């Protein structure tokens, strides 16, 4: 099927390659996000809550 697509124009390999890149990045990002430590995550999540350390 991809051969039919590429017969119309070799440029149409771009969407195929891009979709594959997306899938890989997404899988890699998800796995890394799920395996990071809870301590790290909680510290990052608290940044907006803890920026109220104000003078006076």
């Amino acid at each position, binding site marked *: 099927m*991809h*051969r039919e*697509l*590429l017969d*119309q*124009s*070799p*440029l*149409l*390999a*771009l*969407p*195929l*390659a*891009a979709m*594959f*890149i*997306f899938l*890989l*990045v*997404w*899988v*890699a*990002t*998800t*796995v*890394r*996000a*799920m*395996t*990071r*430590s809870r301590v*790290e*995550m*909680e*510290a*990052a*999540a*608290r*940044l*907006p*809550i803890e*920026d*109220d*350390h*104000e*003078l*006076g």
Partner: protein
Amino acid sequence: MSVSAQVETRRLVYNDSVSRWFVGASVLWGIVGMLVGVVVALQLAFWQANLPPLLTFGRLRPLHTNAVIFAFVGNMVFAGIYYSTQRLVKARLASDLLAKIHFWGWQLIILAAAVTLPLGFTQGKEYAELEWPIDIAIAVVWVVFAIEFFWTLARRTEKHLYVAIWFYIATIVTVAVLHIVNSLCIPVFGLKSYSIYGGAKDALVQWWYGHNAVAFFLTTPVLGIMYYFLPKAAGRPVYSYRLSVVHFWSLIFVYIWAGPHHLLNTALPDWAQTLGMVFSVMLWAPSWGGMLNGLLTLRGAWGQVRTDPVLKFFAAGVTFYGMATFEGPLLSIKSVNALAHYTDWIIGHVHAGALGWNGLMAAGMFYWMVPRLYGRDLWSKKLADTHFWIGTFGILLYVVSMWVSGITQGLMWQATDAQGALLYPNFVETVNAIKPMYWMRLIGGSLYLVGMILMAYNLARTALAGEAVDGETTVVVEKVPEREVPWAEILFGKPVILVTLVVVTAATMAVVNNEASILFASVAVSVAVLGTITLHLAADHARPSWHRLLEGRALLFTSLTIIAVLVGGVAELVPSLLVTPSEAKLASAAQPYRALEVEGRDVYIREGCYTCHSQMIRSLTFEAKRYGDPSVVSDSLYDHPFQWGSKRNGPDLAREGGKYPDVWHYRHLLDPRSVSPGSIMPPYPALETARVDAGATEDKLRALRSVGVPYEPRQVQSARSDEEAQGAEIAKALRDQGVANVDPGSEIVALVAYLQRLGTHPEAAPAPGGRVSLAK
């Protein structure tokens, strides 16, 4: 400042003046933009509310969309970004001067829009109507904003970039790309230009831009604002930081591809339509990831939602976001879109997002921020609650009326009898059926505007009763900064090497035969899975994770974000811009417009006719029955800009040429109801006496030639005489048909010339009505 051997403590005062200015500007322009919205809603329900030539629906609708998107939401986004970024990175804005230039530059752009759009200076592209000098100003001001933002990041004392900052980065870089690419044009003179793209190519670029204006101007910065202000208001951290990582990367990658869902069943190549549809459906997942993250942040705090108007607005805003991002993917499915496209259902969908997500989030942010910017409590919580209920009720009236109207329109357009003939062949019948819904929409929109005015009053009373306060904090700065991880270690880190290896293996599929490609695909998947598992097991847990390192490196993060958003754009736009469809290679398939027709087309664009009339007969049976053969690429090949339209308040005009005699069009333009009883189209009496500027026609043809329209040099040189000749022909025909005193050089004659040209193509089948004899 106190100093110890290793660290020093510094006092930091934020620049909150800029946030105060942007909040004020947002509220003011929000009321103006929504007031224009109420006016255009009235004009659809009551055509007499059109006041030609300046205040007609076609000229005011772009003013409404630009005002609410760029003036209301734009100023709100800038207020939120400047307020939250300083606090998240623990650094004052890098330059007070750049902040002032950004603020005043943006307001001057808005004023320029408010003046030029009603005067008819428009590029005729939705959400990008502003003419080229204003486009340049937008680019300059955006660069100023980007410099201020990234310079502030460079001076930060908090190294970790919180998730809100990622969304702001994605917004800044993507909007720059979108604006520059879509705005490319050839100026003709002063405030007139033509898009360098034409026909289907322009359609694809325009809706790649248009949908991503929604994505990266109306969604991502407001998601960043949600990730900061919602936890602040609720006093609890975001529900899942892990989810925010996955949500961010998925959203910014997938969103870019969704543009073609605005062009389903059109002459756009099938592969582009399918890509748009599939990615739009996939977009549901990351969108709801963000919605769930926002709503679940409120778990344990739902009791506060009852008493705190800020949380009411945020909870409702995020809920409307979820609703709109569920409806959007559904509308992107071809079969659903066949019913919904060009109808009011799309308008309802847009306003659920704009009024529900953008409007309510803005209100929540303002109600939280303004008391802190002025050092006192909100003047009236009760008034804020009243605003919430009036506004929410207004949204529901608006959206429900548009659902009913849209589905009614769609079904009536499709309805056929037992013999297969259209049940409602006269378009006006479908307009009359939905008029009650237009009045209901007007009421809903007006209620929402009342809510905005209540908010403006409440915030003004708060500001007047307090005094301007700039936030302060202390920061602890290490005197000897810890060793930064080198660039090479991040850029050539194991995850990047793994991804590169897998991509190269997969890309080999494109150049080998079917059997070998299956083998390469299997190898790629295996390497990906095994590699990921191996990396995880081998990770040194004592060192910061790879994404954590990425978050700390603002420039690297920005670069990878740019690549993520560019991939979809390059993949969708490059093939269609470089590949010429075979049918368009036939010179005889498309002929450029004659000189007078070009002038008529410019009148059409100036008056905003495309806001009510489409020029795209979709490849659907009921459309062909009503309008003639489905449109093909060559029909609009030389349309710079394209005029496919996105809404039908009136019939499609793609094959209008020859359907009616010239006198019909003449009378229709001056008084639509004289030939089409029940029509809601405004009259255009000024066209009868306004004259075409014949001196400019040659420049226009020359400019069109420079963007690829194949005018011969002699055609350009003889533009004036050809224009006069065609004008004289039409004027004579009109006199023969009973119209006295026709000026052959008038704009109405030019517009008739253009309308009679539409769809008159060598290979097109005649429209169902056929050409009406001039003798009638």
